[in-house]
């Protein structure tokens, strides 16, 4: 199998060359840095082998931020290319690769890990558990996700990026029209990451069902836990479909089958059908936990419990149910009969009903409250109007006949950015500002946070608002250029300016992370926001066993109740018992590596080598089967020491930030 090295490493493009050099330099820098600081052992013991849900969450979040950066750069490149008509910055092929990777990375490798990361950190704490149900599986989920993300990301320097859009519609994505291996990356990397996500879903369902502390009934769970739970249910319901779709794509591309090809009786629209059977629920997988975060933040900073808790729960269950029944609205224009389009128009519009209920419940949570405009709250506030724009345009798109004029135009692009950026990115930012002290023991700077907020929200609106009008004027998505006569130029330019402002906002976040890590006050309380749920009942940052004594829950907003009734806030020495914790394991990391290697070989269609590598996967499974490590016990003295340390500090800190 002769490799043409000239093709293997993508060369000849100054942008890619620049990033290749940057990647090599960064990697050398990281390796040198760790070696210099003698941190290899620490890295291995504390992070690479960890099964602690908080650390895994943090690793998810860091990779998510990194991927958000990569996807953001893709977005900026696209905006640069379309800033003026007939622009010559990128050629068509390069543009196609970039919007493909932008979409895939933002949805699967940025939004998902950021949300799953926060779920990991927060959900076990909110239900008063010591870890998730299957800690080692949790680590495996992360390493599979990470392996998939890395595999996908090397595509633009090694072998070529996928270039058929994030939806990878057949027959374009098939071998008949895209013989390059770029789309193999899509099929294989997403498969690996998807398996990880599926396991996360199972893990969190069991965690929520089985590991709630005493008194934490389902209808007392914090809203973020509820939404994470329902999102996990949707993951388990929809990711198997994606697994199958990607496997069939792999078969078509690498083994020459005829599922979606135009020859041999294949059916191209079947891919679109399967893709959206997964793809639509996927939107709710990312949006629901975000809704949960907004619920927590709005409730905390309005100093009121959530308005209409029960109807909130019913509406998320309703959204989850409907989410599986609307997928065809992504291809109303396929030419299916009017019966099909009518049914799916109706089911789609019905989703507006529970979403509307949530919207009003949030508004009425704030009513009669005392609204504190912390950075986290600002994100939640900005979410409401922006998301309403996304929502109403969503209803417009749901109307089958009207969609014939919106479909595949920039109107659609504007709509889903108005749903996903306020609905997910704002939420993640709110969540990060809100829970940062829980993860790291210091706050993010509020002043820089506000700069971040204003640049980002203004930039966001400026970027995507013009796209509604461009779309209605006939501008289509995924087109790398447009003519001067079209008259689109001013709005496209405005959009590019918005993107730059948005990028500055993201830069402010990165600076904030750096600044706060270096200079922020470490002397903070376990409950800096005067919050309501259980995660604030324990130390910041949270000690590895979470709770010295598992709290007992007597009401919704359990920690608020504890504070009001002064119950369970102190810990007596005799209450301390030994705690059983799971041991670290290198196996998940190994599995991530071996999956990555197997995937890489498969991408390059070296089937025999890939088959050999699967032996490595099987070996990992066998080792796991014979692994009888039952964890370890934390001694009473150690617990007492840890607890005293943070409980005494708290007496001296200023409890209130804003």
């Amino acid at each position, binding site marked *: 199998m002769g490799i043409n090295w000239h093709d293997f490493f993508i060369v000849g493009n100054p942008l890619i060359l620049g990033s290749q050099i940057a990647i090599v330099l960064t990697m050398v820098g990281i390796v040198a840095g760790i070696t210099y600081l003698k941190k290899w052992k620490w890295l291995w013991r504390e992070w690479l082998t960890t099964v602690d849900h908080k650390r895994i969450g943090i690793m998810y979040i860091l990779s998510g931020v990194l991927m958000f950066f990569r996807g953001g750069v893709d977005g900026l490149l696209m905006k640069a290319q379309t800033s003026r008509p007939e622009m010559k910055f990128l050629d068509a092929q390069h543009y196609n690769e970039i919007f493909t990777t932008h979409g895939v990375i933002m949805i699967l490798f940025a939004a998902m890990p950021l949300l799953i990361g926060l779920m990991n950190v927060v959900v076990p704490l909110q239900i008063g558990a010591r870890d998730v149900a299957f800690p080692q599986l949790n680590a495996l989920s992360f390493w599979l996700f990470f392996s998939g993300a890395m595999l996908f990301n090397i595509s633009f320097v090694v072998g*070529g990026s996928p270039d*058929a859009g994030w939806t990878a519609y057949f027959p374009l994505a098939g071998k008949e029209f895209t013989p390059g291996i770029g789309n193999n990356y899509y099929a294989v990397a997403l498969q690996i990451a998807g398996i990880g996500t599926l396991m996360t879903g199972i893990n969190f369902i069991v965690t929520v069902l089985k590991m709630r502390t005493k008194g934490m009934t389902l209808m007392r769970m914090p809203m973020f836990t509820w939404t994470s739970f329902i999102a996990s249910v949707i993951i388990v319901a929809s990711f198997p479909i994606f697994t199958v779709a990607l496997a069939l794509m792999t078969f078509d591309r690498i083994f020459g089958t005829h599922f979606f090809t135009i*020859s041999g009786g294949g059916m191209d629209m079947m891919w679109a059908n399967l893709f959206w059977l997964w793809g639509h629920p996927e939107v709710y997988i990312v949006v629901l936990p975000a809704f949960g975060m907004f619920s927590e933040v709005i409730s905390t900073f309005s100093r009121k419990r959530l308005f209409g808790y029960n109807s909130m729960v019913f509406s998320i269950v309703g959204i989850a149910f409907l989410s599986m029944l609307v997928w065809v609205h992504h291809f109303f224009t396929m030419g299916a009969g009017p019966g099909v389009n009518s049914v799916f128009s109706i089911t789609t519009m019905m989703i507006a009903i529970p979403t509307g209920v949530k919207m009003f419940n949030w508004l009425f949570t704030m009513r009669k409250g005392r609204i504190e405009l912390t950075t986290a709250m600002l994100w939640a506030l*900005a979410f409401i109007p922006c998301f309403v724009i996304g929502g109403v345009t969503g209803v417009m798109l749901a109307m089958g*006949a009207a969609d014939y004029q919106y*479909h595949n135009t920039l109107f659609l692009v504007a709509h889903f950015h108005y749903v996903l950026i306020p609905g997910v990115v704002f939420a993640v930012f709110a969540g990060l500002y809100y829970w940062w002290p829980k993860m790291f023991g210091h706050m993010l700077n509020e002043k820089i946070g506000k700069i971040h907020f204003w640049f980002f929200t203004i930039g966001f609106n400026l970027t995507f608002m013009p796209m509604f009008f461009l779309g209605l004027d006939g501008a289509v998505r995924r087109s790398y*250029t447009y003519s001067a006569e079209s008259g689109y130029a001013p709005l496209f330019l405005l959009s590019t300016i918005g993107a730059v402002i948005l990028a500055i906002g993201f830069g402010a976040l990165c600076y904030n992370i750096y600044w706060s890590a270096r200079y922020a006050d470490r002397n903070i309380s376990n409950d800096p926001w005067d919050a309501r749920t259980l995660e604030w009942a324990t130390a910041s940052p949270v000690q590895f066993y979470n709770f010295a004594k598992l709290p007992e829950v007597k009401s919704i907003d359990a920690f608020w109740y504890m504070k009001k009734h002064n119950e369970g806030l102190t810990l007596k020495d005799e209450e301390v018992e030994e705690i059983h914790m799971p041991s670290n394991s290198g196996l998940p990391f190994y599995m991530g590596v071996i999956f990555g290697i197997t995937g890489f070989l498969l991408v390059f269609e070296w089937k025999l080598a890939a088959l050999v590598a699967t032996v490595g996967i099987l070996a990992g499974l066998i080792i796991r089967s014979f692994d009888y490590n039952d964890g370890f016990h934390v001694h009473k003295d150690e617990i007492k020491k840890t607890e005293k340390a943070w409980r005494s500090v708290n007496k001296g800190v200023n409890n209130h930030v804003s």
Partner: protein
Amino acid sequence: MFKKGYLIPLLAFLPVLLLSGCNKMVVFDPKGPAARDILGLINWSLVFMLIVVVVVFGLFGYIVWKYRATSKNKDYVPPEEHGSTKLEIIWTAIPILIVIALTIPTVNTIYKLEKVPAGYEDKKPITINVTSADWKWIFSYPEQGIETVNYVNIPAGTPVKFKLTSAGTMQSFWVPALGGQKYTMNKMETQLYLTADNPGEFLGRNTNFNGKGYADMEFTVEAKSSKDFEKWVKEVKANAPKLTEKKYNELLKPTHLGRETFTGTHLAWVDHGKMNSKTYTNPELYKVHGVQGKIFKDEENNTEMNDSNGGEHNGN
């Protein structure tokens, strides 16, 4: 601080204000019954959406302003309230009513668009077969026996039944001034009725991404008076070269073309809309940078088209 808090809703409000003032945008400037029907639906939905936006934004602004934390209300303790069944029923019921109000006209319009538009039922529709290929549009007039590339002339005031199919990748056929879009797929035929009220020129294009040449996949629709249309057909039949199978295979290669006109149609030997039609693919011509994977030869449908290496994308 609080002034800034208002900037967001104001900014988000902008589109609504702009929308009401925009009549020039192509979707809001219909030139045929199909586009007009859709616009009617869009306008109907805009009214409701505007109401939703005004109510929510108003409520949002009011609540955030009234209940913001200030130095004056430091000691204010928000009340414990669990919800309100009455309110919750109201804001469940109103969206349901809105959805119903939107559903009925939507379903009506969906069914309406499948038929010859109202007001044109007595006119005999003409049929035009649309075949999309990488990266061009091929129009066949089976009744007239002519074929055009990248432009299509239609008689104004006559409903046109477009039969859509594709020779390869999937495209979407869209003439926004005349009506909504529909996909063109290989081995599948979809139909779309479009009618131009008056003579005029309209831009049509592909909206479904299909590779390197996608950005330039545009065509023009020219609606002529019936007399002019007949005249044009006659001229074409007199002057245009005959379409041969060889020439047609040439057309299907991934290239950009200008306008072309032929007599005869390719329907004589292939209709890509038929389930068992021949497959035309040229994977060799789609190679771009990066490592190339194995291409699977399809034994039965080998098209003998891979002899020359034309088809370079010349758009960039």
